[in-house]
Each structure stands twice: as C-alpha cells, then as structure tokens.
C-alpha cells in the first residue's frame, strides 16, 4: 500500500475534492489542514513543500515520495497505479 | 481643457521634496506629492480595496499602499505589477507659486 499524505487548507474546495477522491478509491491517507495546524506542524509542512521544490499551494498530495500539487485525479491514479 | 477645472490645491512652499499630503478638492480625495520641483496628484483611494494611499510610503516615484503593499507609479498611475490597473491620476500645474489640480483630467 502506498503512503498518501495530503496537506490542505480548511478553506480550499480543491482540497476537499482531493480528499474525496482518495476516500472514494478506498485509499487511506493522512491529511492535515495547514491553516488549522499548530506552529510546529506548519513549519514542518512548509519545509516539506520546499523540499519538493514547490510553493505552498493546496491541495499538496504526496504519494510515497512524489508530490502532486493541485487537484489532479489522473496524476493521483497514475502514481497509485489504479 | 476648461480654465475653471483647475482648482487651487496648496502653496508650493507648503510642501517639501518627497512629501505626500492628502487633500480634499471639490469632495474628491486626492494625494498631492512633491518630487523635487514637480507636483503630482492621484486619487487617495487604492484601486485594490480603497485604502488611503497617503498613509503608505513613497520611494522615488513609487507609492506603496499601506494595506497590502500594492505599488503605483505616481507619474503614470500604473500599478507596478500589472500596468492595466491604474489609480486615477490628475494633472497639476504650478503658477504664481501655487499648485493647481485639474479635476476634470482624472484618469
């Protein structure tokens, strides 16, 4: 099973769609809302986005170690080999 | 251009180089700016969300809005990041040591 991490904002509609996608495909994921997270978690998310060479644009989906920034079902499917 | 659309704004000696001053002329809120011996006037209302530009900062010919830092060229009125967006600009003239603003010339 691939590890899926989703960074999101509580205010972002595409983040909700992304989560829905993984739910509907029965892929477990770990999601954190950046805007609701504590300071330390925010710093960690910031660093992780940077590590992937990306801006903090949400949804920020990491499948194993591949980042997909934005709501992109085809890219999710490709990485999940669905 | 009609002679009477020029409105007296301020005496030249009442402003120093690099100064900005909010004034109300015929009910219009304007910022007057003096750069060396030239005077410029633009609307005091930021095109973004209407904050008073006179409360911002001036660096050379660029004024920065205090609210979200949008920057405008005071000579052209153009927004630095996208010149399609402009703050209303008025023409000014100096005569007899007095500064006049043309309110008709807004744009």
């Amino acid at each position, binding site marked *: 099973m691939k590890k899926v991490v989703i960074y999101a*904002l509580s*205010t*972002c*509609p*595409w*983040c909700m769609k992304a989560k829905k996608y993984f739910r509907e495909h029965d892929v477990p994921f770990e999601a954190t809302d*950046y*805007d609701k997270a504590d300071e330390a978690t925010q710093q960690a*998310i*910031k660093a992780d*986005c940077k590590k*992937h*060479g*990306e*801006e*903090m*644009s*949400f949804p920020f989906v990491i499948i194993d170690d591949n980042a997909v*920034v*934005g*709501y*992109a079902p085809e890219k999710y499917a490709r990485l999940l080999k669905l | 251009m009609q002679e009477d659309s020029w409105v007296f704004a301020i005496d030249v000696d009442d402003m120093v180089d690099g100064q900005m001053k909010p004034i109300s002329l015929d009910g219009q809120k304007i910022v007057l700016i003096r750069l060396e011996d030239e005077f410029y006037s633009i609307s005091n209302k930021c*095109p*973004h*969300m*209407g904050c008073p530009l006179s409360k911002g900062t001036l660096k050379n010919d660029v004024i920065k809005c205090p*609210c*979200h*830092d949008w920057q405008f060229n005071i000579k052209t009125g153009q*927004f630095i*990041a*996208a010149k*399609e*967006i402009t703050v209303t600009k008025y023409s000014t003239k100096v005569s007899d040591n007095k500064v006049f603003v043309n309110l008709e010339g807004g744009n």
Partner: protein
Amino acid sequence: MDPEVRKEQLKEMFLPLVDSLGYKLSPDSEIVDFLFEQEVQIEKEKGSPFCPCQGLSGEREHDMKLVCPCIPFHREHYDAMKRCWCGLYVHKDVEDPDLLPQISLKEFKMSKK
C-alpha cells in the same frame, strides 16, 4: 458586518480589477460562492482576504502577494492555466472551467524550459 454583504462588496471591488487583466468570474457559481465565503471568513480572522487555496508563510512580502485577487503577482503562471490557482477567476474565453487543470509553479517553470 453581515457576511453576505461583505461577500458582495469584495466581488464588486475585485471584478473590475480582474476584468482589466482579462479574467472573469468562473462560470462555476458554486465554487465562486464558496470561495468568496471563505475570503470573508479569512478577512475576519486575519484582516485581509487572503487566498483560500495557498498557504501564508508569515512573511509580509510573501503573504501580501496572496491577497485576492493575486493574479498580478502570478500572471504568467495563471495565464498558462487560464485560471487563478483557486479557480475563482478564469480567462474570459473559458466556458468549461472543469477542463482547466491546476499546474504547480514548478511544473509551469519546467514546461517553459
């Protein structure tokens, strides 16, 4: 202030700006409504209608470029997508916003090379 009233005010302020940049409101009125609602809420909490879909870093220079409409500061990137990151605004010729994918800044920069 009544959030519904503020929503309309933000819309009224922002529409002429995005119009002059070649954008219009997305035809997806549900998304539009939702996003303005978020902006009103964000403005209440943080003082400015920051982007509902991009993260604030706490550094003023970075964050002020994420106040709606942030198109002027991300013009090339958004023009390439024909939409802003959130999809609140789209290019004027766009009829079906669902056909416009989000492309990350990194992808966009790579595609330019």
